[in-house]
C-alpha cells in the first residue's frame, strides 16, 4: 500500500502489550508452529492475505488477516477441510508433515531460517549500477511494490542469492535469484512535489530489474 493516500494519521499506542487479545497470541503461535512443521512457506501466507478481497483486507486486523490466510492454506493444501474448520473438530486423521514444534523446541524453533540459496548464475548487477525496475503487474505474489515499478534507481547493496518469493508462492520451487537494495530519489517515485531530502530503497530480486 506504499504511497496510497487517505488512511490518516499514524497513532502510536503508549505501553502497547504484545497481544491485545489472547486469540492474537494463539494465531501468531499457530502460524509459527505450522511454518516450522513445513505446512507451507511464509510466501504462501503472504499470498493468501493478498488474495483477500480488498474490503476484507482493509478492515480486518493484522492477526485476523493471519487467521484468514491460515484457513486458506490449511484447506488449499489439504491439511483439513472447510467443513472441519467450520465444525471445529477433525473428521479424519491428519497428513504427515516434515516435523512438529514441541515445547522443548521453543528456542531452536523460533530461530529465523536462512533464505540464502545456491546461485544459478553470476549476479547481473553490481553496487553502483543504474537500473530500471520492470513495469510488471502480476496477479500472483510479487515483492516489487507498485510505487516502485518502472522507475530508475541505483544498486546500493547486494544481499546474495535468495529463494524467490514470486516462484515460491505459486509452488514453482525456490528459483534462486540475486537480491539487491535499490535506492530511488524521492522525485523519481513521487514527482517534482516530492520531499527533496527523501530517498527510498526497496530490496529487489534480479528479475525485477533491467540495466539502465
Amino acid at each position: 500500500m506504499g504511497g496510497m493516500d487517505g488512511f490518516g494519521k499514524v497513532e502510536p499506542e503508549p505501553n502497547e502489550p504484545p497481544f491485545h487479545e489472547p486469540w492474537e497470541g494463539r494465531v501468531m503461535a499457530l502460524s509459527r508452529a505450522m511454518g516450522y512443521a513445513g505446512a507451507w512457506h511464509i510466501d504462501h501466507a503472504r499470498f493468501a492475505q493478498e488474495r483477500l478481497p480488498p474490503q476484507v483486507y482493509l478492515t480486518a486486523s493484522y492477526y485476523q488477516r493471519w487467521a484468514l490466510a491460515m484457513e486458506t492454506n490449511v484447506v488449499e493444501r489439504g491439511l483439513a477441510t472447510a467443513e472441519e474448520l467450520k465444525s471445529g473438530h477433525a473428521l479424519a486423521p491428519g497428513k504427515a508433515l516434515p516435523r512438529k514444534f514441541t515445547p522443548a523446541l521453543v528456542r531452536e524453533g523460533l530461530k529465523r531460517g536462512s533464505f540464502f540459496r545456491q546461485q544459478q548464475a553470476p549476479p547481473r548487477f553490481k553496487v553502483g549500477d543504474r537500473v530500471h525496475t520492470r513495469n510488471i503487474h502480476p496477479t500472483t505474489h510479487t515483492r516489487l511494490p507498485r510505487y516502485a515499478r518502472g522507475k530508475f534507481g541505483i544498486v546500493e547493496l547486494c544481499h546474495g542469492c535468495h529463494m524467490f518469493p514470486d516462484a515460491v508462492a505459486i509452488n514453482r520451487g525456490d528459483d534462486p535469484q540475486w537480491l539487491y537494495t535499490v535506492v530511488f530519489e524521492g522525485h523519481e517515485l513521487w514527482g517534482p512535489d516530492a520531499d527533496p531530502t527523501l530517498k527510498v530503497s526497496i530490496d529487489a530480486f534480479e528479475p525485477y530489474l533491467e540495466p539502465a
Partner: protein
Amino acid sequence: MSGKDHDHHDHSDLSETQLRVRALETVLTQKGYVDPAALDEIVEAYETRIGPRNGAAVVARAWCDPAFKKALLADASKAVATLGHVSRVGDHLVAVENTPKTHNIVVCTLCSCYPWEMLGLPPIWYKSAPYRSRTVKDPRGVLRDFGLSLAKDTEIRVWDSTAETRFIVLPMRPPGTENWSQERLAELVTRDSMIGTGLPKQPGAEI
C-alpha cells in the same frame, strides 16, 4: 492460555474471530500438526523474552565499542551472532546508521516485515495502513505524528523491507553520555529509535 482451558466456557460471549481461531487450533491439534503446549511456549517467548531490549543491547554495544560498530555496519548478522545473550537473528540483518546528515526509517509497505529477533513483535501502528502507506511518500509527516521534527536539510532515507532482509537503525548516541556503561546506555535506546520513528532518550530522561 490454550484453547483447552475453555472447553466448558459459555460460548455466547465470544466473538466470531475467537470462535474461528479456537476451531482452527482444535482442528490442527486433533490432526496432530501442532501441540498446544508448544503454542503456549511460543506466546510466552514473545511476551517475555523476545523484545526491544535485544536490539537496545546491540545499539549500546555499538556506541561503546568502535570495532563492534564497524563489524555491525559491515555485516549485522555476523556481528550480532557474536553476542551470546541476544536471540539468534538468522542471516539477513542489516544495521543502518543515523548521522547528523542522514536519518533512517524502516517500513514494510507490502506486509509488515520487522526484525522480530531484535525488537520483538511489531507494534500495531507499524502494521497499520497509515504507516505502511505514508512512510515512503511523506516520512516527515509520519515523523510529525510521532512528535518528531528533523532539520529541513536532513536527508531522510526510508528502507522498505520488501524481501527477507531486516533492518535495524543505529541511532546517534545522545550527547552527555561519555563514560556511561553499556548497560546504562541501553536504557536510553527506545524501540522507536531503532525503527527510525523516534530518537533515543536524553540523559536524565531514562526512567
